[in-house]
């Protein structure tokens, strides 16, 4: 007779709940991202300096592969960021290879540069704009998670 391994099924269940929480957190953050960048650019000169480098109409997307979660946004004439449909064509795309990787970055557990070094996401688009976008996200994440050393 095979005895069910209750401890492992409990662990699986907890992991499932953990993943659901991570997905919810990442979805929320992706949903707020255009607003956060627009708001952050108004209150932080460092963030504003980085967004000013990007041209008007510049658009980007952040996607989490395998989950369907994504956010796309476009820079407007006033410097504010407007949401686009998540499957809209964009000039620069960042695609995380797993939800855990996106969660680590968006929760301040890992810097974007460290995630890049570990190849946790792939990118598509012009290098110079990608670098500018990286600086922008770095400032944004630092504003929220400076206390975690990001």
């Amino acid at each position: 007779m095979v005895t069910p391994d209750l401890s492992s099924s409990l662990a699986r269940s907890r992991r499932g709940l953990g993943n659901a929480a991570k997905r919810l957190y990442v979805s929320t953050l992706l949903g707020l991202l255009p607003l956060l960048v627009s708001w952050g650019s108004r209150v932080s000169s460092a963030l504003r300096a980085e967004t000013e480098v990007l041209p008007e109409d510049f658009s980007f997307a952040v996607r989490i592969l395998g989950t369907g979660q994504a956010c796309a946004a476009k820079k407007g004439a006033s410097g504010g960021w407007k949401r686009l449909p998540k499957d809209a064509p964009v000039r620069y795309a960042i695609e995380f290879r797993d939800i855990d990787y996106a969660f680590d970055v968006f929760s301040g557990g890992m810097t974007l540069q460290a995630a890049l070094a570990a190849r946790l996401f792939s990118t598509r688009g012009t290098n110079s704009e990608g670098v500018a976008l990286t600086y922008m996200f770095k400032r944004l994440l630092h504003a929220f998670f400076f206390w975690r050393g990001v």
Partner: protein
Amino acid sequence: MQAFEYSCPTKIACGAHALRKLADELRDHHVEKPLVLTDANLVKLGVTRHATEPLEEAGIPFVTFDAIPPDSSLDVVNEVVRVYLEAGCDGFVALGGGSVIDTGKGAAASISCEGEDFALLQGAEILRGDRPPFFAIPTTAGTGSEVTLVAVVADTAANAKLSYTSYRLVPDVAFLDPALTQSLPPKLTSTTGMDALTHAIEAYTSVQKNPVSDAFATGAIELIARNVFTACETPGDADARTALALGSLMAGAAFSNAMVGIVHAIGHSLGGLCHIPHGQAMMLLLPHCVDWNLAHGVHTGLYGELLRSLDPTRYDATAPEGRDAAFAAVLHEMNAQFHERWNVPTALSELGIDRSMLEQVAHQARYDGAAIYNTEEISEQTALEVLNAAW
């Protein structure tokens, strides 16, 4: 340990007469009609025949495209794609320096993407389709492009270098044959050699460094440091040429996985805006970037570790706390020797650049693709300080 990936699937055929294996490698990859990419100068010097003669003897038909300039562009990539498709080729043999090999990589990638505009494929890991078999035959020991996942192509309209990175750009086979580099003059040998040295040093200090790339980087530095002056003094020394080519390849394997940093960020910008050859830019900038880093406490200790590979005698004779500075001093001394013995320019002022361009170069360097792999964020002020020091 920081998480990392490492990949270098290229088969390496190294040593005298390595190119005699070319026909067999083509057959092994089921290539029946390769497009041989090279440049007109290499054809004129008779270097290209080292690859084409074995093909003729083996009865393998091929098409030659020799109109690749030293600073290749998107237009050339598109022209190569057109010739490849019209001639019904089924593989690439790229014989030349970084420009030829990178043009070939761009063309192969473009074909794999079935006509998608190559200019829109910039980024990392974006190429998904299979590309045609690719055989790389470097004729300089510098870029390491024969094993890297990087292709750099100029956008002449934007005065910028576009870079593409994908595991699918890594060549299938690399041939290192000393016969191909023995005709290189000392100036080119030194600047391309210092390019390779820069790859290894920046790979060792990059945010993406890892134990495997470190091993390749230190091995490369040893080979380059031991052989670059011999290859300049005695161009026909096959052992020195082979070792230098291998050092360049190993540096390529290191930086293909660990990436580079500030020297390349500023160098790419100098190349794009002032048309300074890449190896020349690396040679000029490397010691000054190391000076800047050390003055600001960046990479403290790491450069000292590399002194063991660069100059083992100096390493043994120097106390641990003095090894970083000794490392920088050796780089300056190498440049001084190249300048004194072979009249190689080692200051930007010798290259006829308008000094007022430096601010623009510094701005573009901050947004170069290599900049994000630098441990410290590169500000325009940082880049400008380095450029002024190199002036």
